């Protein structure tokens, strides 16, 4: 079964029909592949919006005493830039790629709960809509993405911006928790026969770990934001010191969530890198168990380091020492991963495709971000660096240099699988280098200006502080960074039209998703494969080169082969996939409408007396939710495995 013998499907079904756009199929879909694509496209749109917010800020900061933006607009921009990039870009992009790829990698036909999956995507979009609506309705959230109290109390943040923040992120939070539950059950319960946890691809491992982190970290944020909502709307005073509340409580609640959140942002990407490096080194991942368990270790340790965001608040030496030690310890499992990645490439038959370039870009930039993180983990050093641009440098090296470069690696790697077309490699490599250089030009000087005393979250600065030239360089870098993103958009759009058609397995890869067509048919696998090793497709292609020593029982049959299938293949019609349904979208819509009501629960809107319109929204929202639940129950009976029986 050599790779050279692969057949090509004629034309990717996505471009086959020239009829009108199949709205119903997409809006009522419960197929993990379509849902994944909606996540990915939406997250990319938010990436562009967040990038525009960043560029506006950098124009303002490009010169001292600039008057391009007012302080108030600047506050909204830095709040929305971070909120967008974290909650509306990296998280959904991770979830989107995970949604598409994880069921394929484990040999499943879909996620465990396809309708819940659909609810998650529409709820995420509802939350994003609420957040961006705020720009048009009196002002976006402006208290920073971390929303410190008591600045966020209603007397200091009187616009509805912070209420939009609370409720928009409340919706995306519910979407995330539901999605995480889906991933946990899918990975634990729906692996192909023979795929023990010890044989799962590392991308699947990381999604499992991240899903547990999500369900245990998000509730604290939910509680904190509910309490903030109560402060703002219902007469609470949880975080208002003047009335007996505690501003520190907000910080603890927020960062107990906020730190695991950054591991939510990076671990799936680390999983992608763990898949990409072996393929383009033609070697198995070095130290599979170490890479898997270091991910688990990071997941656990991530819950006990949160107060390193609070070294400047005055918790006392004992607390500072504990959190400092724990934060440094977390560098160990991270280092384990990095050394294993390097060892994977060492003496491998390395192919520097664009995906591989990005994977290496990820490793190198993440190392830099990790080093600045080590200095930040030391309280005495941190007292100098906290709230300065040094932290901005650190977070962008790990989030852009880490997560985003890794996501581009994943994009170049899985684009053929998702679309049936290859991205242009020549354009890709140019795009990579423009991005790498401009990324470093933009963010490296921030280490310097931060150390020279430039604070964060300021809308302007005096001339002659020694910061001018660096800020100017950073602003220039930003524009080239934007240009590199435009090159990517061009690559995507032109490749979708005229890119080289992709076979099942264009990269000569190792995992199950490459056994089926690009893009796969709705049911994924005609025959659920039986797995007996960590690299099922590789071992089927190269039985004499199988080298990771985990072949399972000697007599266990493996059955992995290329499938050349579509919706018309004999046997395909007998596979019952879950029906399309609008119930998840209606439920998400109802929650969004109700949330909008809560934003205005103490205000008069639409010309009606106080609360009337808002309560109207809440009631309509609840009615939509009830109607959707009814429809959902009807759907579950329709798709029941006991179809045809009297039940």
């Amino acid at each position, binding site marked *: 079964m050599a790779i050279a013998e692969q057949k090509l499907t004629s034309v990717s079904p996505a471009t086959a029909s020239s009829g009108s756009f199949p709205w119903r199929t997409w809006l009522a879909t419960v197929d993990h592949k379509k849902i994944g694509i909606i996540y990915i496209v939406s997250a990319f749109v938010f990436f562009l919006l967040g990038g525009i917010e960043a560029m506006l800020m950098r124009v303002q900061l490009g010169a001292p005493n600039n008057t391009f933006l007012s302080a108030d607009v600047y506050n909204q921009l830095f709040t929305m830039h971070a909120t967008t990039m974290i909650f509306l870009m990296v998280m959904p992009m991770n979830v989107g790629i995970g949604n598409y790829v994880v069921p394929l990698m*484990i*040999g*499943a*036909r*879909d996620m*465990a*709960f*396809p309708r819940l999956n659909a609810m998650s995507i529409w709820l995420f979009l509802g939350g994003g809509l609420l957040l961006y609506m705020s720009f048009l309705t009196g002002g976006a959230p402006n208290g920073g993405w971390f929303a410190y109290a008591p600045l966020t109390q209603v007397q200091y943040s009187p616009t509805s911006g912070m209420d939009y923040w609370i409720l928009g992120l409340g919706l995306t939070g519910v979407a995330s*928790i539901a999605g*995480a*539950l*889906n991933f*946990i*059950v899918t990975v*634990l*319960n*729906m*692996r*192909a*026969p*023979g*795929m023990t946890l010890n044989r799962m691809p590392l991308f699947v491992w990381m999604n499992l770990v991240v899903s547990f982190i999500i*369900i*245990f970290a998000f*509730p*604290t944020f*939910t*509680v*904190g934001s*509910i*309490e903030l909502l*109560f402060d703002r709307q*219902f007469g*609470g*005073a*949880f975080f208002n010191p003047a*009335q*007996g*509340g*505690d501003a520190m*409580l907000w910080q603890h*609640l927020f960062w107990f969530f906020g730190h695991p959140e950054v591991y939510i942002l990076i671990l799936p990407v680390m999983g992608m890198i763990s898949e990409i490096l072996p393929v383009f080194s033609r070697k198995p991942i070095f130290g599979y168990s170490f890479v898997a368990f270091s991910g688990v270790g990071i997941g656990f340790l991530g819950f006990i380091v949160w107060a390193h965001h609070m070294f400047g608040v005055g918790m006392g030496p004992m607390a500072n020492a504990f959190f400092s030690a724990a934060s440094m310890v977390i560098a160990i499992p991270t280092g384990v991963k990095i050394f294993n990645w390097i060892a994977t490439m060492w003496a491998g038959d390395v192919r520097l495709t664009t995906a591989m370039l990005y994977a290496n870009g990820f490793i190198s930039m993440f190392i830099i971000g990790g080093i600045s993180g080590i200095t930040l983990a030391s309280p005495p050093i941190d007292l100098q660096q906290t709230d300065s641009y040094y932290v901005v440098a650190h977070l962008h090296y790990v989030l852009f240099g880490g997560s985003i470069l890794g996501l581009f690696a994943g994009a170049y790697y899985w684009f053929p699988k998702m679309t049936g077309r290859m991205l242009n490699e020549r354009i890709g490599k140019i795009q990579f280098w423009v991005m790498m250089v401009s990324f470093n030009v933009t963010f490296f000087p921030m280490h310097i200006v931060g150390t020279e005393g430039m604070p964060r979250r300021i809308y302007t600065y005096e001339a002659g502080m020694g910061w001018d030239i660096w800020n100017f360089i950073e602003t220039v870098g930003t524009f080239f960074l934007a240009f590199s993103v435009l090159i990517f958009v061009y690559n995507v759009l032109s490749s979708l039209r005229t890119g080289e058609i992709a076979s099942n397995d264009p990269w000569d890869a190792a995992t199950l998703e490459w056994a089926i067509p690009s893009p796969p048919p709705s049911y994924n696998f005609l*025959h*659920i494969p*039986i*797995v007996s090793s960590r690299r099922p497709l590789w071992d089927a292609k190269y039985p004499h080169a199988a080298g990771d020593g985990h072949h399972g029982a000697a007599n266990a*049959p493996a059955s992995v082969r290329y499938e050349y299938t579509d919706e018309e293949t004999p046997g395909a019609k007998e596979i*019952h*996939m*879950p029906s399309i349904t609008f119930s998840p979208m209606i439920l998400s819509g109802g929650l969004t409408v109700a949330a909008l009501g809560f934003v205005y629960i103490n205000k008069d809107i639409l010309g009606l007396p106080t609360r009337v319109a808002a309560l109207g929204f809440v009631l309509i929202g609840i009615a939509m939710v009830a109607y959707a639940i009814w429809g959902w*129950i009807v759907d*579950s*009976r329709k*798709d*029941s*495995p*006991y179809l045809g*029986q*009297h*039940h």
Partner: protein
Amino acid sequence: MSATSHAHHDEAGQAPLVGSLGVDSRKLGLWAFIGSETLFFTALITTHLIFYARTKAQLMADGMLAHMDPKHFLGINLTSVLAAILLASSLTMVLALAASKSKEWAKFRFWLLATIILGSSFVLGQAYEFTHLYAEGLKLAPQYVFEGETVKSLFGVTFFTMTGFHGLHVTIGVIWLLAVYFKVQRFAASPENPMDVELVGLYWHFVDLVWVAIFTLIYLI
């Protein structure tokens, strides 16, 4: 279980190869959700205990603790009855599940209805308790009034947030119980019934457990 969540058998028809934990997918998902909700209630309860400790310290410093302790509001006359009601409802839930597994539908309907009535009684009793507390001077506000004297404290805010969200969870549970009741009545022969009952039962026991925790930590101690 949907078509996508069946455990797989290999094509030779042999015993299923490993690929699943062997637990029903919805049950596994609900357990994970309960894990998440545990942290949700932990955060709410912890916030309440922190602010109560502050109030106590403040009152002790002013020498007013014995007189103005907000715990005075939290009489256990009604609330211990509510706790008993909820515990009893867990028992009736177990009996309903057993009846559904042995297909004794009349018994099932009796015990599930009992659970619904007990659960609704809890919600109504809790609502009455709230109005009673409001009348006595404890409100969702950053101060409370006890025997004419005002104390600046977040006891009321944290108390009502915590118990209010618990009450909301019980209410959702009652609605879910009603849904299962009507579903099983309509489709008595469906093989899915025992699992449907078990799932709502699992959620119901969790909600009961949260009340045991709140009652113990907030009312009794």
